[in-house]
């Protein structure tokens, strides 16, 4: 439980392939995680490691626990009143279920993008500065820089730079989702969780978000839940296949899609069920 906060960039540079990865490159280590909604056992003995500066995709049929898992990673799952957990999820070496671990502190490090775009009913500018503001950044100049940088980071700047004071709900669905990504980038998190971020978007917006994910992974570790297997294959480095609350298989994406070990993974990927 000592601090294992790795010097992020250097560690990534010195590693060329996955085989050399050690604990320092693991952002998350999930150990024997079980989760219940009331009496419903939703996650069973999950063991899963998330590596930094990678895109980890989580696939599986509806109700398999993939959204539950990703929401456990920033403890958003606790907003459901009847949730109980056992086991641990270590984020950078610290168990996030530890009573002393402030949930706000965790969520400041771990950003989240939701299934449906959920901008605040405020101006585009206000949406982006919300995060920095609640964490105490008030300097106008700094905030302006954050807005520009975040919107550029989310590939939205050129489309909205002339109307930053307009209401965010005037944007298209795809733009709203990229605004939500910009809002998330504004506090420069370590990890970005994406819960089916493109399921409410049209194909072109989806493509834009996918391209964005490829760029963002240079600086952030990304975990993405998706229904779309082609999407997982296109954008992720590793893929975890969930079924009935269990991790059936977790491996490099190439391997999962070309040569899965488990029969059930193969069936799902080839479209025989799910």
């Amino acid at each position, binding site marked *: 439980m000592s601090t294992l906060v790795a010097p992020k960039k250097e560690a990534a540079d010195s590693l060329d392939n996955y085989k050399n990865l050690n604990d320092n490159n693991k952002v998350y280590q999930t150990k024997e995680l079980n989760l219940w909604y009331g009496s419903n056992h939703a996650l069973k003995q999950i063991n899963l490691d998330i590596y930094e500066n990678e895109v980890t995709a989580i696939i599986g049929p509806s109700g398999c626990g993939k959204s539950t898992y990703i929401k456990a990673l920033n403890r*958003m799952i606790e907003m459901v009143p009847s949730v109980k957990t056992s086991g641990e999820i270590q984020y950078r070496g610290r168990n996030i279920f530890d009573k002393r671990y402030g949930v706000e502190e*965790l969520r400041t490090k771990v950003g989240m993008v939701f299934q*449906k775009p959920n901008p605040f*009913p*405020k101006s585009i500018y206000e949406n982006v500065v919300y995060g920095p503001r609640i964490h105490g950044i008030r300097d106008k100049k700094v905030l302006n820089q954050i807005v520009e940088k975040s919107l550029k980071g989310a590939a939205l700047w050129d489309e909205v730079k002339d109307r930053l004071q307009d209401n965010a709900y005037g944007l298209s669905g795809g733009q709203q989702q990229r605004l939500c990504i910009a809002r998330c980038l504004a506090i420069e998190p370590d990890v970005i969780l994406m819960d089916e971020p493109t399921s409410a978007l049209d194909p072109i917006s989806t493509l834009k978000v996918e391209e964005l994910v490829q760029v963002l992974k240079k600086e952030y570790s990304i975990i993405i839940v998706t229904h779309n297997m082609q999407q997982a294959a296109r954008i992720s480095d590793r893929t975890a296949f969930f079924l009935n609350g269990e991790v059936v298989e977790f491996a490099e994406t190439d391997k999962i899609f070309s040569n899965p070990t488990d029969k059930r993974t193969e069936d799902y990927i080839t479209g025989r069920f799910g």
Partner: protein
Amino acid sequence: MNIQQEEKAFSVQELIQQKKSKSKNKLKSEKIVPVILLLTAIVSVLTTIGIVVTLFVETTTFFSHVSIKEFFTAQKWYPFSETQGSYGILPLISGTLKVALIAAVVAVPIGLAVAIFLSEYASDRTRRVIKPILEVLAGVPTIVYGFFALTFVTPVLREMIPSLQIFNALSPGIVIGIMITPMIASLSEDAMSSVPKVMKEGAYALGATKLEVAIKIVIPAAISGIVASIVLAISRAIGETMIVAVAGGSTPNLSFDVTSSIQTMTAYIVQVSQGDAGYGTTIYYSIYAVGFTLFIFTLFMNMLAQFISKRFREEY
């Protein structure tokens, strides 16, 4: 199995046709019901128009006795003085506004605090206990509140402020505040609970605390409902009659003093209606003028509420 097969022998379309031919009356009722509904709507509209017209006509008669200028600028309200009666409504307005203001000062912070607690912090169980209690508080007859003000709140306040008169603005103001608190709490809570959960999650995911989510996301998103509830509650405070009639006294005076006896517009109307003045006298007509002023006040408040809620609405 047999039963199922037998039932299958019927065609559902046939059954529908049979029912249809039997119920020709249905068509009639489809035509009659809207007419009945329209009539009831007309009744309530006509009643409103009737009230306004009566008020207006009688008020016009009053202004043939007393000039409009005197009514709005004179600083004394002495309708019962036979030799030098003075009809300046300002003292009554000041009494009303003092009470409404005190009520708002009590009710707005408490009501909003309760609403935030109920919508953002309270567990389902706590909410299920507290909300009905609030609604009971809202259902207490106002005469009971009046006696509560006179026999409990006033003596307690006099312990703290010895110069307080038995009849004053402070005590009924506070008690009206208590009375309208549930209204603000309940309506604001409704507005705040209807803020989409995904929006709150967006803020929580950025590391916001509950308080930050409540103040910077939920309240702004629900502001139109909250403002509407406050204005509605203040309208109610302005129109409140029994509490001020019982505990406020009957001395109209134009001042900012809340410790001495006052009279509000509503309390004056009660006083005259109880039979102190004969039909056709100036005093008799004066209650219409006062009532009309009161009507203008609440109308203005409602328009204000609509304006504010439109102006500050955050569209989502």
